[in-house]
């Protein structure tokens, strides 16, 4: 019990400091209030034109497609992460040493930072855009199953952190991990479902995507939010896909821990 309370105290302290630190740059976050709706307007006209001769495309109606892009934007604000950039910078500059000496796992510290950072995103990006999408664009942004949607978004939040952190750890071997980061971000951009629903990809690729972690970052939480999941012709109930997502997060977390332990054996630092 004490262990848990101590962890919660650490999360609260780090998250609060991160929130205050980034609050100084809140107008940077507020750029999203312009950018998010503008991108959405483009998507609105693209898909309205594309659906002009069709009622459904790959099993999705126009209203679902618009909700898809609205929810995709909003979930992006809640799960956004740059732990990879942060970690590779700490390793490259040698500043990781100061974290390695602390009595706290650096990934846990990164998680606490992310919580503070995304709470800011919740207030300055998520809520204003939710308001715009709902009341200005009249898009249905109500989750089909609120509780499952919250769980799925939280799992996506963790998944994004674990994946990015693992990519960031390549800096322990490569020092300059920018190339790997950019390739990974590119793959995630294409295969997470942020660009277009994954059901639009060829069937072979959809089957492959079932075994990759990308869909759990964006596509799965969006479909859980909308209330139906389908990929590669496989339909799952919401509890089933959220269960799958939880297993995937656990697997990546274990893999991340394994890589972390290997990294610690490799890491050498001089001076603090």
């Amino acid at each position, binding site marked *: 019990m004490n262990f848990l309370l101590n962890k919660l105290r650490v999360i609260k302290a780090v998250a609060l400091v991160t929130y205050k630190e980034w609050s100084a740059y809140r107008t940077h976050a507020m750029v999203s209030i312009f*950018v998010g709706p503008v991108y959405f307007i483009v998507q609105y006209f693209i898909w309205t034109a594309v659906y*002009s001769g069709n009622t459904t495309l790959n099993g999705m109606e126009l209203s679902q497609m618009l909700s898809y892009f609205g929810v995709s934007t909003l979930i992006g604000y809640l799960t956004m992460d740059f732990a990879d950039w942060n970690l590779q910078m700490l390793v490259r500059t040698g500043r990781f040493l100061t974290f390695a000496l602390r009595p706290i796992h650096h990934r846990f510290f990164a998680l606490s930072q992310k919580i503070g950072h995304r709470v800011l995103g919740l207030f300055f990006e998520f809520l204003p855009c939710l308001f715009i999408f709902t009341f200005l664009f009249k898009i249905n942004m109500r989750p089909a199953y609120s509780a499952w949607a919250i769980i799925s978004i939280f799992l996506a939040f963790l998944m994004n952190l674990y994946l990015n952190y693992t990519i960031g750890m390549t800096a322990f071997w490569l020092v300059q991990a920018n190339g790997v980061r950019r390739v990974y971000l590119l793959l995630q951009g294409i295969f997470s479902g942020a660009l*277009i629903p994954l059901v*639009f990809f060829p069937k072979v690729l959809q089957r492959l995507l079932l075994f990759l972690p990308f869909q759990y970052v964006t596509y799965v939480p969006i479909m859980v939010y909308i209330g139906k999941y389908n990929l590669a012709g496989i339909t799952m109930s919401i509890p089933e896909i959220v269960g799958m997502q939880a297993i995937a997060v656990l697997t990546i977390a274990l893999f991340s821990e394994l890589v972390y332990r290997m990294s610690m054996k490799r890491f050498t630092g001089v001076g603090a």
Partner: protein
Amino acid sequence: MLKKYIRIYIECIKISIAAALSYRLNFLLDSFITLVSNILFPLVTLLIYGSGAEFPGWSLYEVLLIQSIFTMATGISRILFDGVLWATMGHIIDGSLEIILIKPVDCLFYLIASTVDFSGSGLVVGGAVMFAIALSQLGQVTIWMVLQFIVLFLSGIFVMMGISLIMAATAFKWVGNSRIPEIFESIKYFGRYPQDIFHKSISTFTSFIIPVAMIGFFPAAALLGKVNHLAYIALIPCIVFTWGGVYLFKHMVHLYEGVGG
């Protein structure tokens, strides 16, 4: 005077090439990733047409033509002007803009020349390949169409230059905001698609206020024989927009107050 500026520009290009050659692998990787991340939009178009849907009145290759021209223009802009924002922002944050201001050359020219970056060449090549593929699938192109295309394409490049300079000018007031490009990228996003899919008020905005339609749509329309008088009227806002970018940047330099670098 002009000779001096041309000589400086050539020297800057040589330095940029030398820098790219020093870090060859990084340069190639950078060019490749930039190219791949910019061809995501054609990928969406391919997936839409692959699912049996379409943009009404536009074939797959016509839309790809718009997007290939947009990609080439983005590449050229990346090489020639895009570095101005980051260089300006960096100098303002460091307080080192004074060093540029005391040089015996125009500040804007120096910033443009010294930030030539060939990592955008992958985009130009990739866009050109896509352009050739799309064009080969479309009808006959006459010399008149090509001439129209060249004029409109160059105007699109000038719009990109105007956007880069407005972004750089914004950096004087909104110090250190790395999200400034996102604002303009989101507006440029309209220029990647056929303009008749948008509401009239939006296509008016993208043709005459911030003329991003000139980057891809109007030049493509010229090659497809779909260009109308609106494209020529839109040339005027393109000139005004570019001039506005130059004026705004120079005005912000004029207002700039350094504290000694």
